[in-house]
């Protein structure tokens, strides 16, 4: 048996350990403050520069050579349209691929290679996706510098994020739930439809929003496919007053997007355009924050009833 430590020595030891504990807390708080302060500074800087431009007309006017008349109408509509295409393409493809890899694919060399490649794709620089899209969508398929090209390009960009998030969410479902469903006679599709999809939905949603938040700020691939920063018209509305009421012409429309508009304005020397850029950047940050807020709310709603 070891000899017990004298009480005085034990207390000194505990005091030393406690000091280390406190030190780490201080370090953590400092790191957090630094990160937060950086964001706040950036945000305040944009706010100070751009606040005066954030009037209703800013959202309803097209770009202009006169800084005080310039607005972001084409840009925010373009971004919204591109995001819709991106989400409509990336979510079904990514979720289906994730479900296939987790629930159906055999565990072998081929799936291992696919798995590694998907993780690698998430790290490929976005300009590479732009070049791929320029060669494939714009030139080979002749889709032009359009909303659909941009949507498809950004969908490719975020596909790995959606796939990885889907797989993580599916893997978090315990095997006991799976076995319970199978033991009652469920087929694989019934398991996916009734259990895997609903239970992994909060995680999938998180991945989708992380992906879209990344896509919304991407500039390089959109510039590469040939989007222009000066556009004085809107894409045709998807809903028409005459039969057949729905129109998909907007997909083929040229467009601009928020990051391109911001980039265009920051490259102008006049201070007034810099203010426009700050204001547009604020709007872009706000769009991202709103998307994240929706995701958090949805996740909270869906997760409320999930536990195992």
């Amino acid at each position, binding site marked *: 048996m070891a000899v017990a430590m004298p009480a005085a020595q034990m207390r000194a030891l505990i005091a030393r350990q406690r000091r280390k504990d406190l030190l780490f807390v201080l370090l953590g708080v400092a790191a957090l403050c630094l990160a937060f302060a950086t964001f706040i500074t950036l945000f305040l800087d944009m706010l100070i520069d751009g606040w005066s431009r954030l009037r209703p007309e800013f959202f309803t006017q097209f770009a202009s050579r006169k800084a005080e008349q310039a607005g972001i109408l084409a840009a925010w509509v373009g971004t919204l349209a591109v995001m819709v295409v991106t989400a409509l393409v990336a979510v079904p493809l990514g979720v289906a691929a994730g479900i296939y890899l987790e629930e159906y694919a055999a565990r072998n060399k081929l799936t291992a290679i696919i798995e590694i490649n998907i993780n690698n794709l998430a790290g490929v620089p976005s300009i590479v996706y732009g070049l791929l899209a320029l060669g494939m969508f714009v030139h080979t398929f002749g889709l032009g510098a359009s909303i659909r090209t941009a949507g498809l390009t950004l969908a490719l960009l975020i596909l790995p994020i959606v796939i990885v998030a889907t797989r993580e969410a599916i893997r978090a479902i*315990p095997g006991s739930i799976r076995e319970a469903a199978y033991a009652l006679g469920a087929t694989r599709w019934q398991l996916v439809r009734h259990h895997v999809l609903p239970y992994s939905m909060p995680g999938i949603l998180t991945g989708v929003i992380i992906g879209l938040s990344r896509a919304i700020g991407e500039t390089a691939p959109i510039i590469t496919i040939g989007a222009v920063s000066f556009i004085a018209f809107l894409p045709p509305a998807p809903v028409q007053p005459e039969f057949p009421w729905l129109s998909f012409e907007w997909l083929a429309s040229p467009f601009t997007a928020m990051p391109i508009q911001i980039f265009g304005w920051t490259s102008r020397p006049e201070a007034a355009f810099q203010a426009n850029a700050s204001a547009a950047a604020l709007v872009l940050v706000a769009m991202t924050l709103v998307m994240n807020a929706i995701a958090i709310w949805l996740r909270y709603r869906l997760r409320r009833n999930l536990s195992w």
Partner: protein
Amino acid sequence: MVAKPPRPDISTLAKKAEARELSFHYGTKQALKRISVPVYDRRVTALIGPSGCGKSTFLRCFNRMHDLYPGNRYEGEIRFQPDDIDLLGADIDPIEVRMRLAMVFQKPNPFPKSIFENVAYGLRIRGENRRSALIDAVEEALVAAALWNEVKDRLDEMAMNLSGGQQQRLCIARALASQPEMLLFDEPTSALDPIATASIEELIHQLKDKVTILIVTHNMQQAARVSDFTAYMYLGDLIEYGWTDDVFFRPKHKQTEDYITGRFG
């Protein structure tokens, strides 16, 4: 111990299922060695033996749970009555097997859905979506699982809000709702407290008039209390099988006696 009715002549009993020369391999590891054992209709058969003896592996052959994981291989057959099919046969869809033989697991595993939807799930996947039919079946199953009185006013609440013992009875109700021909219990009380355990054992007693039961248990007293027949397994071999009273009080093998009296295992 519950008083048992006089034993009938074993040759007059109908077999619900019978394993014949059943071997099972996890990859290259053989987990069951040519097991032959009957399961009598509307009787409780208990599988006992030390950890790793293959009793759960054996149980999971009956509803083809091993098919869910790659690298598993069966040999031999399990004849199943009344239509004399081989549960392991290549011509039998494992989905059919699982629809006819329900399973209750070691840890309660309700779905993260409402109490009602948990019990109704087996019927839903069989294509039953009429609300009235589901309501009747859910009530009947919950009554049979001795849970109805506790949950009848909160069928729309999440199953996770129930206690462990209630969750396990819910899983039994879920298994019963689709009227299985045979119930497989895989150590159903090992995660429960003594009171919940007693209620599950009582339930097994009541159920055996209606359905054939095969139960794996770690608890020797439980096997003695609930079962009519007992099979003792060791390292993938069936060592002894017979009427529970015989296995417990007049074991033919020294090893069985040692295990039952706690000298080993």
